[in-house]
């Protein structure tokens, strides 16, 4: 291997600084959330304690964050399941041109670029004019889908751009019906990418703020609750909450990554049985 050029070291340094820039603040609040009871929002640390984490479990200090967490979790799972199903169907639909497909694609792109606050405002207006109460599981759920579906669909496009149609043709040649081909050939092949779509669906919903702002109704989701805290909480309890939800996010991401990895392992072990039937 040829020696690394000097530019490598400069770029590596830039990259290292970029990672520090990305993670530094998060690590800082993680450290500060262990402030002693007298400590403030910045260094120095006045002792080390779990005081602020304990506060999180006391209703009067932080309001109903556990209820909000539960709602965000349920909503995230709902959005995740819907995003995966609808994106796969949409991805399959877009493999062949159909009347209106170009228009629908433009709508998907529009969904990505239209500012979140417009979706929030518009959905809120429709519900109020129709006399329907806004609720996180109805209006909030729909508003979040306009953000997660485009991502899911773009991932499906990327997947199907790389999909080898020979597998399907082989299945058809063996007499598989259209549904059998999808169920036993296409879905197993794209399964690992579906985990990616699920990750996007869950985390984007779990962290969504702007689209739920006017569509969640009287019961807040966790990001709305945290936002409310930024205006009236001036103690490290907010860092403790931030640390806890970030740890939760990392755990979710880790779970997804491990699943992808395990699937890959299983596939590698099962391997190809090409030629073994002879």
């Amino acid at each position, binding site marked *: 291997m040829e020696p690394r*050029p000097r530019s490598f070291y400069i770029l590596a340094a830039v990259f290292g600084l970029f990672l520090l820039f990305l993670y530094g603040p998060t690590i800082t609040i993680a450290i500060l959330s262990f402030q002693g009871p007298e400590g403030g929002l910045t260094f120095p640390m006045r002792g080390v304690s779990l005081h602020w984490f304990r506060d999180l479990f006391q209703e009067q200090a932080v309001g109903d964050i556990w209820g909000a967490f539960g709602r965000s979790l349920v909503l995230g799972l709902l959005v995740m399941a819907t995003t995966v199903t609808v994106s796969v169907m949409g991805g399959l639909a877009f493999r062949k041109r159909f009347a209106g497909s170009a228009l*629908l694609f433009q709508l998907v792109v529009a969904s990505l670029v*239209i500012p979140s606050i*417009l*979706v929030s405002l518009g959905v809120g207006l429709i519900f109020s004019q129709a006399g329907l109460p806004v609720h996180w599981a109805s209006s909030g759920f729909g508003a979040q889908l306009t953000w997660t*579906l485009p991502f899911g669909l773009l991932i499906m496009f990327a997947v199907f751009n790389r999909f080898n149609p020979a597998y399907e043709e082989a299945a058809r040649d063996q007499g598989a019906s259209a549904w059998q081909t999808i169920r036993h050939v296409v879905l197993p092949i794209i399964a690992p990418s579906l985990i990616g779509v699920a990750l996007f669906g869950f985390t984007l919903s779990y962290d969504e*703020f702007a689209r739920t702002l006017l569509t969640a109704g009287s019961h807040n989701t966790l990001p709305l609750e945290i936002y409310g805290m930024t205006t009236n909480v001036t103690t490290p309890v907010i860092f403790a909450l931030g640390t806890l*939800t*970030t740890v939760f996010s990392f755990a979710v991401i880790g779970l997804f990554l491990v699943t992808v990895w395990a699937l890959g392992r299983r596939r590698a072990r099962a391997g190809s049985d090409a030629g073994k039937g002879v």
Partner: protein
Amino acid sequence: MERILKSPNVTGWLLAAPLTLVLAAFLVLPIVMIVIVSFWTATDFSIVPAFSWENYAFLFGSEVTYRVFLNTFKYAAITWAVTLVLGFTVAYFLAFHVRSQTWQTALFLLCTIPFWTSNIIRMISWIPFLGRNGIANSTLISLGVIDEPLEWLLFSDFSVILAFVHLYTLFMVVPIFNTMMRIDRSLLEAASDAGASGFQTLWNVILPLTRPGIMIGSIFVITLVMGDFITVRFMSGSQAANVGRLISNDIALLQYPSASATAVVLLATVLLTIGILLRLVDIRKEL
């Protein structure tokens, strides 16, 4: 019947139906509603159906509007420039300087993980860094660079743009890295064989071939910054304004018609900007 079900149009429509329904109900209808309400009028307590240009007349007649739109463009332009340079550099390092694929995947994941965590918490995380007694100020003072704490670090244009760059650089890194990975490496060899220096290869070969990725990243960053209201509000300590905040302030005052008029103008501006960028790239081919 059999023939109808086998028609590619019908299969396509059936498969695309859920997607179409969701987007129709929660994207198209709401936008139509906003356009309608932008012509309505409001009393202190309720909104009244009408057909009046008063919201638009007020919007375009107010000097504040122009200032706020200008400010929004300023944030978008500066954030775009910074995230482009930073994102390109990071993607370039990952794509062309990291040689082992395992490392490449691992480092790429490290860059993307924050995307899946909460934006609000990532904003809050800057407080201990930038505050008057924060890490940045105390470090600079102890190094002897400054005598007094810098006041413009937090709750200023600087902190707003810093937060934007922090939140959105990934949107540049990912598409640019994606296009860079598809560049045929033999082109780089050819350039080097033809006597191009490293910089000439970067400028004349890699940069033009990376253009689609740059465009996609730019679309993300520009629309996210132009539509934002929470970052500007939080990071400027409510001192700076952009169009998103104009809308959210009206909403807080229950002035929905006026909020809708501003929203329509913002939407037109964003779509116009994106329309121009999309002329330069075909998204579906680039995934």
